[in-house]
């Protein structure tokens, strides 16, 4: 084990600049950080704070228009400005990195065994055959079941958590000194997230490498890191031990971040409130495979006899891991995808409605998506985006009236009305999500299905969006179906919770009851993983 106080990576006055058509963007403005042997340093900050770019700059992985200046020394050896061939002796061997997206950081064309062997063969020489034994060890180490069989699997045969384990195995292949983990668990379900973090911790105990954890999730930092550096707008605003930062934050920004955990609760509507949207015994089957001539078609049941009753003014939180069928349920309730069962909107039976008969009702039933980057067409101005629904539902409106409503809707979601002449790519994630909400609200809906509306956002922005959604609910007497895997957000938003697993409801009840006294084992595991990392 290395000496705990030895500094192995010293970053001094590191700057990362990007040349853009609008001039130079200073992503990182001269930061200094030390990574000591065997410690866990968390770099915390919101998206755009430059935390990833710092590490990318050191590893020589910046986009083409990026330049890095300053100094980063690994055990006395300067890394900045090294030619790639020299740098390769350090990166991938002594300093390794794992990324956020385990789906895309593995090459789909090669079996995982070969991909793990690649850094070994590259840095130590030898053949892939010789490396195989080491690969098996590594797979065992990161807890992949049946490594001998899995070694020849392709990435698509593994789950997200397993892929992240494979990435970790790759990073560990050459006994690194420093493991840079760039949001390693953000794309994973909460239960998997906890497992991966546990794995990282146990590996660190065994091998004594330093871990640089880049994250925006303060919950992880609190339980996992020894020291924390808080970054904002390319600068380190505060650094210190985890205890210091969490107990005695000095900068306003850190305080704000700590306070950004969603809180508050919503008052339940009376039990007598009329049911506005109901789905009884909802079943959705997906057909897998089957072309024009091939006969064999198999069915996959995404939602299995689920019953949901949404009252006026109520928020139902739908919780579950990815693949549990919660998003499918939301779309089935809006009749956007075909599903069996009985559906009712207000007092109208809409079970047999097709697309054209649903069209007039769409005005009252809206949907907000998870990904604020994907849910706005990049070729339309914001004004066009949000007034599009009016073209369908109120075709008689004049241009001036549509514009007036767009202004009102943008004001309502807290955006500058000038935004309507701009394009979506000019806005941040939180602003885009507001635009998406404005698009739904301009139609004055009664029911809004919120499909992970905050999952892609930073914590502090999440809080703002949740406040906005609550305020809109109050003003317009909206009913929400709030789909999320983030339990703390669900807790703050909903007054009734439905827990789904494999297309079925495993438990449902009042929010407090579910969180305080979960009855089902799965619910317990979910809540355990979310609140006690």
């Amino acid at each position: 084990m290395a000496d705990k106080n030895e500094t192995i990576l010293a970053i001094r006055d590191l700057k990362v600049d990007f040349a853009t058509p609008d001039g130079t963007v200073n992503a990182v403005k001269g930061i200094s950080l030390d990574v000591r042997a065997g410690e866990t340093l968390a770099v915390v900050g919101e998206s755009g704070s430059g935390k990833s770019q710092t590490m990318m700059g050191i590893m020589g992985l910046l986009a083409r228009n990026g330049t890095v200046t300053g100094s980063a020394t690994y055990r006395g050896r300067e890394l900045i400005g090294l030619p790639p061939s020299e740098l390769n002796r350090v990166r991938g061997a002594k300093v390794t990195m794992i990324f956020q997206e385990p789906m895309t950081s593995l090459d789909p064309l090669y079996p995982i065994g070969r991909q793990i062997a690649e850094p070994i063969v590259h840095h130590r020489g030898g053949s892939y055959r010789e490396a195989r034994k080491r690969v098996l060890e590594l797979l065992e180490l990161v807890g992949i079941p049946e490594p001998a069989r899995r070694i020849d699997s392709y990435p698509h045969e593994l789950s997200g958590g397993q892929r992240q384990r494979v990435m970790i195995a790759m990073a560990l292949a050459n006994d690194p000194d420093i493991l840079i983990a760039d949001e390693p668990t953000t794309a994973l379900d909460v239960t998997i997230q906890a497992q991966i973090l546990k794995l990282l911790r146990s590996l660190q105990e065994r091998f004594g490498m330093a871990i640089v954890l880049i994250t925006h999730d303060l919950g992880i930092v609190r339980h996992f890191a020894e020291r924390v550096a808080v970054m904002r707008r390319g600068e380190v605003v505060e650094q210190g031990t985890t205890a210091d930062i969490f107990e005695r934050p000095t900068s306003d920004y850190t305080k704000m971040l700590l306070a950004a955990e969603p809180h508050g609760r919503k008052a339940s509507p009376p039990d007598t409130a009329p049911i506005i949207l109901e789905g009884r015994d909802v079943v959705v089957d997906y057909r897998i495979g089957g072309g024009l001539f091939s006969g064999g078609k198999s069915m996959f049941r995404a939602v299995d006899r689920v019953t949901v009753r949404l009252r006026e003014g109520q928020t139902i939180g739908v919780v579950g891991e990815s693949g549990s069928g919660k998003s499918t349920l939301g779309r089935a309730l809006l009749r956007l995808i075909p599903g069996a069962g009985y559906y009712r909107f207000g007092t109208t039976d809409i079970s047999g409605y097709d697309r054209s008969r649903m069209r007039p009702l769409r005005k009252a039933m809206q949907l907000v998506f998870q990904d604020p980057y994907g849910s706005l067409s990049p070729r339309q101005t914001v004004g066009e985006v949000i007034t599009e629904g009016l073209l369908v539902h109120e075709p008689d409106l004049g241009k001036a009236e549509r514009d007036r409503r767009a202004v009102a809707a943008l004001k309502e979601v807290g955006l500058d009305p000038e935004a309507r002449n701009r394009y979506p790519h000019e806005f941040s994630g939180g602003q885009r999500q507001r635009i998406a909400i404005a698009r739904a609200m301009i139609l004055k809906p009664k029911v809004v299905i919120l499909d992970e509306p905050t999952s892609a956002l930073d914590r502090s922005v999440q809080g703002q969006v949740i406040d906005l959604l609550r305020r809109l609910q109050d003003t317009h007497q909206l009913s929400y179906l709030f789909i999320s895997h983030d339990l703390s957000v669900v807790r703050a938003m909903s007054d009734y919770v439905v827990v789904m697993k494999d297309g079925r409801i495993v438990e449902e009840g009042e929010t407090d009851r579910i969180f305080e006294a979960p009855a089902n084992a799965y619910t317990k595991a979910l809540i355990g993983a979310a609140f006690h990392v």
Partner: protein
Amino acid sequence: MTDFAATPVSEPPKTVSRSLFQLALIRFRRNRAAMAGCVTLFLIALFSFVGPLFVPHTYDQVFSSYVTVPPSLQPRPDTSTLQDVMEGVAGRARVNLDAFAVEGQAFTATISAEEPIDPRATRYFDRANEFRDTKIDATENDGRVLKLSGQVSREYFLFGTDPNGRDLLARVMLGGQISIAVGLLASLVSLGIGVVYGATSGYIGGRVDNVMMRFVEILYSLPFVFLVVVLVVFFGRSFVLIFLVIGAVEWLDMARIVRGQTLALKRREFVGAAQALGLSDWQIIRRHIIPNTIGPVIVFVTVVVPKVILLESFLSFLGLGVQAPLTSWGALISEGANNIQSAPWLLIFPSILFVATLFSLNFVGDGLRDAFDPKDR
């Protein structure tokens, strides 16, 4: 945080608002090769379409005195050869040439014969491309000796002439007009059909997609020449038909590309949002799918244009394309290839322009692809 009026969302930066297209344009402008390609294309278009105004010869004007002359910056005829030419003319007019002199642009000649010479004999002189405005200055010896004077007409053939004595410069310009027009129009036809077909097929999906794509594959399997021959036989041969035919064949690739794009796009959430808003399929295709496929489509068009120009030359080569005296670069090149040993300039000049056009289009295509590549954003 609970009060929004108190904590307004951070103001969008006060920069000029730019659409994705404008951003792409900015990136494109920074690409030197692509900009050079643009300039070259512009110059070639200018040469082909405006050039004929400055060339005194038309593309179908035959200079029988200048058959297959090599390109030269000197005007024709050469003073040294005029004597021979004059003797030839005198021979045809059955007169003797007694004296011949050239001074600047004018010439004087004395001709004689046994019998009195018919004054209309001057027409023999005018008929030669080299002389014009021949008139009789004096008649001697009862018309047996005529003193003539006239102008030497000097012609420039910068690109030389072809075996029929037509000015290659004018013909290359005409060929450029036709090739560029066919390239652009046929590409537009293929663009129109391909984008609508591909987007519809990809967006609706399922059985419709299957049937539509199988139809495309059937068309793919038909030999192109066969298709063209059939169409030409049915509709007769015309200029409009050429680009319709080529466009009607080239849209297949376009349809596949757009369909692929559409398949990716229709899983994007903004399409889901449009469905939730209640837009009809056609509205979604028109408002969301097609505008978002435009990047790859524009790039592909720059590849289709040269391909179409080549196809047209192939058709002309088979005798199914434009017919003489009209011509295209392809036809000129195939003609030049036949005379490569005796008259290499017939191949060189159209080829240079053709190659320059193709290169420029490719550079522009590369530039556009980079400019529209969202990963660079």
